[in-house]
């Protein structure tokens, strides 16, 4: 049962009391969205997007022209512009905010589910999104909606600037729209880009299980045509997302058999229909089970989550509670291989590893300067572990399937960074007593584990073994 603390959160830290009712301990964390536990600066998405715009404009419109014959000069000035727009700093600050929720907040269960949703509505590696805005998107659109209906999160994520840019909807132009006509007059062709529409169906809502066709994808793309950033000479593609009727496909569209009229409202109506489709709740229930419990969820596991969804109209706190309860009921039977990020956070929480730079240290950063190495520690670390949360390779986010995380090199990272982490612990946690207590608190077979790790005398070796035992790798 004690793996439950690691399954739905990151285990119990040295200052955490052992909950008298573990299930309640977990579900009580899901009703509200508390303030961030990070006490340093937190920038709004809009401001970070402004820096993104300054970077794109400066590079594309100024430097490329100015230094067309000077490769080295171009590199040098580009670096200056990077620092002037905080390109190497912001995502490190976002990681501090992100990991504080796992390690320092009263709601680690909420944090683990936040990471789930951030990955569900993933912004993968594209352009400079990770460097400027992905963290803020996950704060303002994903986490902020975790006490709302799924529909609200889906609506906001879909027309969020990050998602629109990420999935190319700015290039999605109705072939019979005004803009396509203007383009034709100039001898150019403009048409539909179905990328975002397909992912909305496939990854974000109903999934291919619902049986939509390629025609549904195209019709959905027509509905989405015209939603794009408001273009500006200086801000380029970083303007706020709006609906531009000139790029919108006229006429009625049909998706999954339902008709939608032309115009601005059709997208939100279509999303409402998608999130209410039975395939959507089934898909989300499956994904939650896969994230928390096992690679191959059973119908019985998904059932209570689907029920909670139906009863509450997709109200996320209720969906989450149902998922956590299922995870609790199956905690003795199933262990889930933890991805590198969740593994790192578990180790940091239970062994009291000083993972996150302090707010005051991060706030020393001055725009225009190169951030110092220790301010970038988390960026390097996540890259080394093979799972930077803002750099998923594809729009389907980081995998929740164990096999995808099993490779020699990824396992080597766990060995070497377990060792590194040991040296980031305070002296008072580097004692045998600390480890005995921690193991007692977090594992169901403490004596067996102690017997294994006690084959070594030095604590650092015990630490490395503990965090690479199957009991830890799988929770």
């Amino acid at each position, binding site marked *: 049962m004690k793996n439950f603390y690691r399954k739905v959160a990151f285990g119990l830290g040295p200052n955490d009391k052992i909950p008298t009712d573990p299930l309640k301990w977990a579900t009580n964390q899901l009703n509200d969205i508390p303030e961030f536990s990070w006490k340093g600066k937190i920038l709004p998405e809009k401001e970070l997007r402004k820096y993104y715009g300054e970077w794109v404009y400066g590079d594309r419109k100024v430097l490329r022209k100015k230094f067309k014959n000077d490769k080295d000069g171009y590199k040098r000035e580009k670096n200056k512009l990077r620092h002037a727009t905080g390109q190497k700093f912001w995502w490190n600050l976002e990681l501090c905010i992100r990991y504080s929720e796992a390690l320092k907040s009263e709601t680690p269960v909420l944090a683990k589910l936040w990471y789930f949703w951030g990955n569900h509505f993933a912004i993968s590696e594209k352009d400079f999104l990770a460097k400027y805005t992905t963290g803020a998107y996950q704060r303002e659109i994903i986490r902020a909606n975790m006490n709302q209906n799924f529909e609200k999160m889906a609506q906001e994520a879909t027309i969020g600037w990050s998602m629109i840019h990420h999935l190319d909807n700015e290039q999605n132009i109705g072939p019979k729209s005004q803009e396509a006509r203007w383009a034709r007059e100039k001898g150019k062709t403009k048409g539909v880009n179905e990328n975002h529409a*397909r992912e909305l169906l496939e990854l974000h809502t109903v999934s291919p299980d619902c049986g939509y066709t390629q025609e549904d994808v195209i019709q959905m793309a027509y509905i989405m045509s015209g939603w794009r950033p408001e273009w500006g000479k200086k801000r380029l593609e970083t303007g706020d997302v709006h609906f531009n009727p000139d790029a919108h496909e006229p006429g009625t569209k049909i998706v999954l058999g339902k008709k939608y009229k032309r115009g601005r409202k059709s997208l939100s109506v279509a999303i409402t229909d998608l999130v209410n489709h039975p395939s959507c709740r089934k898909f989300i229930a499956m994904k939650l089970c896969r994230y928390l419990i096992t690679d191959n969820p059973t119908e019985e596991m998904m059932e209570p989550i689907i029920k909670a969804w139906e009863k509450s109209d997709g109200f996320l706190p209720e969906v989450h509670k149902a998922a956590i309860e299922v995870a609790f009921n199956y905690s003795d039977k199933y262990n889930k291989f933890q991805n590198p990020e969740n593994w790192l956070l578990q180790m940091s929480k239970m062994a009291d590893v000083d993972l996150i730079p302090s707010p005051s240290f991060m706030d020393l950063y001055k725009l225009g300067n190169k951030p110092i190495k220790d301010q970038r520690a988390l960026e390097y670390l996540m890259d080394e572990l093979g799972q930077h949360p803002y750099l998923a390779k594809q*729009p389907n986010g980081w995998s929740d399937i164990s096999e995808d995380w*099993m490779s*020699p090199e990824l396992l080597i*990272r766990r060995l*070497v960074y377990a060792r590194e982490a040991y040296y980031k612990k305070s002296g008072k946690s580097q004692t045998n007593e600390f480890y005995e207590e921690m193991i007692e608190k977090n594992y169901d077979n403490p004596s067996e584990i102690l017997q294994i790790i006690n084959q070594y005398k030095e604590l650092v070796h015990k630490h490395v073994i503990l965090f*690479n035992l199957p009991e830890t790798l799988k929770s």
Partner: protein
Amino acid sequence: MKISRRNFLKGSATTLFLAGFNFPVLANTDKKKNLVVIMLRGGMDGLCAVPIIGDKNFEKKRKDLILDETIKLNSDFALHPKLKNFHNLWQNDLGAIVHATNIPYTKRSHFDGQNLMETGGHVPYAIKTGWLGRGMKLAELKGDGLALALPMPLLLRGIPSNDNFYPSKKRLPRTELLQLLKSVYADKSEHDLANMMEIIANRSMMNNGGTSMSRKNSSLAYKAGLELKKINGPRVAVFEVDGFDTHAAQGGVNGSHSDSLIEMDSIFKSLEKGLGSEIENTLVLTLTEFGRTIKQNGGRGTEHGYGSAIFMAGGLLKKSQVYTDWPGLKRKELFEGRDLNSTIDARSVYASAMSSVFDIDFKRIQKEVFWGDELINLSDKLFKS
């Protein structure tokens, strides 16, 4: 420029298949053959790497990017002067080029294009496995892939238990500790973990005093060469080279496109060094998402284009050649009036390569890896049988 459009590819494509028909597996030879793929990310400029000789259209459109002192390969094509190692291979019949080729992706997004170059599909993100992984699965090469990268590239997805190598900057724990973990995994019936710990414990170069190895492609390639050389080592290796997206200051011989080409060239050299005589049984291929516009832009760079080139190296090549169905560079010959056209589906080259290296009938690869798409078997033209 003497080359003109030839019709030598017509009439050889077959697309009709009978369901349930088992294509015969070609006779398996005893020697171990290796396939190496180098992914060139960002859009490799085939016309910068392998320029056409004496084309007025080309010279006019690229005034500031024309290279001096290129290496003449034949009457029609030259080689970028910095590709010295490739040129050595070429002189020994160990280097060849396919020109005016690309995957069937005609839009301009790196992300979609790179996704498609790895999946081999038509719709970005629709396929979740790589053509190489699927080809290996067909050849039953489980556990024979080696990625020189930390996350497993999409290209190799589709077959489990691939190995990867990307040196950690930190020291690995002592061998006894690894052995202890291995025996714990075995005791607890965690066979996948135990297998991996076995691989890790055997990585001798990780255990020699903790000096961390370079992550430069040239040193990874040397290491990969040594592994591929082993009779029970991997049979497939995958590299990545970034930085081909030169929108500005692409420059001439010392420009930014050259920097990335030089990195690619260093992989050829180090692989050859590591492989030793086994270069004879190896085939190396490059892969990119698209070429670049012929016309230089205002920043003396180039924009995203279409047709590019494939570099090939190794003893499994038939001979040194620039294999192409050259489409020409006159305006009406260009793709959308701006790009070198692609007259050979790059996937024909990759399917033929897998057929030759994995000893699998081309039609099976065409059918099971590339969904029966209209590809052409170029094995006889490009590779030794």
